[in-house]
């Protein structure tokens, strides 16, 4: 309507910001920690209502169940911060372990090829993830096709490949290295939890304290300015997409190891949970904003709520509704409280 509304009033922004400088930094920090009070509140409520909730077993279970989604959230967050998006992660998470299983499983039992020893399952899955990221990179960086449509096409294609090689069935009875991360215990905790903790720790450190990490924010915040600063923007996008594929493959290895199988629809539809977790955790869809700690609180919050609902005996059929409702309520709440505008 009034086209002029978008014109910034320089004096206004200037004086407003000058007055509330400390406030704006506090808000930037708050963005990272916004969900923490809510998480604590839910833990307290859960513990008060259900004595069995506040046990190590509950939280161990919670964390190991969400491990693979959490890794996908890391992948998506890195890509979103760089100003791109990757929908195909939800297919990579199934295809990477699927191809590993296909190549390593014995012939008779379930359509495996038994072409390669089971030891190679993890390297193969990771290579598949990296290759998918590289293909996405080629299409997005080299051919300059929009990331949304490229990765949507890849999502469908990769799912089709998994359905094809598995003949629409499940690879079960996984062996060798593919089982390890999903089932091992390190220092009394499931390895999957350790992997998530380590990946988040590395990610948080790299994003905050290394030039590669900061370059993601620069590229996502203003591509041209990043290029003019000597940042190799194409390379950054490409590398981030490959890392995204690798992390999705790692997520797939963990989840398939936990279940000892790869279904042909593994990961299907989960990209929406991944986006939701990242966005309520403060990652901007416009790029250049957010932190992995925030993203972690996002995925933790959603899974925590599920856990409480399970304890409350809510029927499964209502979970999707409640999942969606929680996401919307959190977004509305953030808009009202913090004025966050970029969702």
């Amino acid at each position, binding site marked *: *309507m009034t086209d002029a509304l978008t*014109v910034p009033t*320089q*004096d206004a922004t200037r*004086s407003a910001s000058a007055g509330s400088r400390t406030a704006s930094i506090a808000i930037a920090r708050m963005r990272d920690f916004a969900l923490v009070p809510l998480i604590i509140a839910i833990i307290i409520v859960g513990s008060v209502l259900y004595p069995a909730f506040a046990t190590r077993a509950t939280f161990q279970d919670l964390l190991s169940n969400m491990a693979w989604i959490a890794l996908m959230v890391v992948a998506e967050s890195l890509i979103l911060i760089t100003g791109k998006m990757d929908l195909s992660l939800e297919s990579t998470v199934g295809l990477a372990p699927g191809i590993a299983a296909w190549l390593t499983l014995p012939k008779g039992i379930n359509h495996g090829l038994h072409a390669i020893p089971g030891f190679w399952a993890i390297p193969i899955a990771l290579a598949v993830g990296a290759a998918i990221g590289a293909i996405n990179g080629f299409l997005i960086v080299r051919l300059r096709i929009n990331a949304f449509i490229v990765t949507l096409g890849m999502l469908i294609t990769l799912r089709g490949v998994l359905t094809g090689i598995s003949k629409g069935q499940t690879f079960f009875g996984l062996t060798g290295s593919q089982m390890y991360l999903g089932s091992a215990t390190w220092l009394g905790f499931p390895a999957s939890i350790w992997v998530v903790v380590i990946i988040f720790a590395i990610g948080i450190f790299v994003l905050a304290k290394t030039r590669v990490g900061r370059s993601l924010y620069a590229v996502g915040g203003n591509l*041209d*300015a990043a290029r003019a*600063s000597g940042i*190799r923007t194409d390379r950054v996008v490409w590398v981030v997409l490959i890392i995204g594929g690798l992390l999705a493959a790692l997520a797939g290895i963990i989840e398939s190891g936990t279940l000892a199988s790869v279904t042909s629809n593994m990961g299907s539809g989960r990209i929406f949970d991944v986006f939701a977790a990242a966005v309520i955790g403060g990652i901007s869809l416009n790029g*250049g904003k957010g932190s992995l700690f925030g993203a972690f609180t996002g995925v933790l919050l959603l899974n925590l709520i599920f856990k409480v609902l399970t304890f409350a005996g809510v029927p499964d059929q209502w979970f999707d509704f409640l999942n969606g409702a929680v996401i919307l309520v959190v977004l509305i709440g953030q808009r009202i409280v913090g004025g966050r505008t970029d969702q």
Partner: protein
Amino acid sequence: MTSSTEQHSTVGGHPPPIVEAVKVTKRFGATTALDSAELTVEPGEIHALVGRNGAGKSTLVSILTGLEEADAGAVAFSGRPAPPLSDRHAWRSIVACVYQKSTIIPELSVAENLFVNDQADAGRPISWRRLRSRAAELLAAWELDVDVRVKAKELTVEQRQMVEIARSLSRGARFIILDEPTARLDAAAINRLFSRVRALQEQGVTFLYISHHLQEIFELCQTVTVYRDARHIVTAPIAELPRAELVIAMTGEQVSETSDPRPPAPPPAEPILSVRGLTVGDACRDVDVDVRPGEIVGLAGAVSSGKFAVANAIVGLQRPSSGTVLVEGRAPRRGDVAKALLAGLGFVPQDRHREGFVGGMSMAENITMAVPHRLERHGVLSTKRRTELAQQAIQRLDIVPPRPEQPVAALSGGNQQKVVMARALADEPRLLVLMTPTAGVDVKAKQTLMDTAADAARNGSGVLVVSDDLDDLRYCHRVVVMFRGAVVGEFSGTWQDQQLVAAMEGIEVS
């Protein structure tokens, strides 16, 4: 097109001012953006509003166009109180503003842009043929030669401004605010803009003209109002206010306008930058430029002269088609900014909003963006070192507010440009390439920016100033002038501004 002011004239007296703002005050949080500010614009005049960045001009424009409400004071148009903020229709029929940034929708045709949300009567289907003929009529009435079928994004900046002016006139507004309209125009386009503005003035349209370019104001306007630090300082007929006094009114202190700002000319030496036979697509051909240590060289020319293509090829933003660029005798890889920076080059890009900074990131991060190696220890960035480097730059360039953690988007235009300059200087470059380094910044910031460049030259760096702003070019030992892609002249020592302007226009080379 009769003068609308006649309708509102009071019986037997002067017509009331087209705009009268009385004791307008506006606060944002703790800061006062306007403090009992006054403005009176008489019908039919071209009234200049000048002031440094942050003087309150933009806030006043927001209030005069109904985007914001004053906390105190009153605004009247032609003697009637301003309509309520919610009545956009009334506002649009009174006043229009052509902003620095386009308010046109790039993907829609010119015709549709002229009648956005008014393509047809409510409830009727749109007749595109009729819409186009309405648009063509409108543009013809204002003697604008623009094809109404093309997409708005294909217009030049100049055409775009004309279309915006025509659009506001079609809505009945006879008072138009031009906010820095010449910032992105070349000299010829500025002249055309001015003659149109004068023609509209003769038809009874009143203008409020905001600009940092004082000579434009002297050329175009009849009256000038100066704001400083949120206050009204003076309103006077242009003819009665000498240039020096105007500058004093704006800055509140004497800015030496006449002394030679150049550092001493350096002794002959091997050039730091040596460009030979540079051709970049169709933009420029066979350009030679040298810059010696300690020398400030201007590369001047109109927007279409190809000067930016030369500069972008030097810094690696564009890949040259042929020719060589040597920085300290070595050729950095073509079209590779990172390699150019490594070769000892620092630069301010042409468009600060697009290429200059990452708005959401802090000043400190922006300033150090090109020099992560100076912050790294064992591959880890030191926040402390970053803040130190930023603080040095903030001091050196007098950036306000002096807070490294402030996001750059929240700074005023002049300070944003200082951040971009600081980024260019962060690695003590041997060669500094500055593209329109002072576009859209106030007199004081201009001086700080150019003095900083002069300091770099004193310390032995070579500086290439790519600009057609005469105030920037005063700092140069030599000015190389380009016209339509080729070098057409060179000035050194002392020269007359008129000679320089003539060369940039391709009129004559002395």
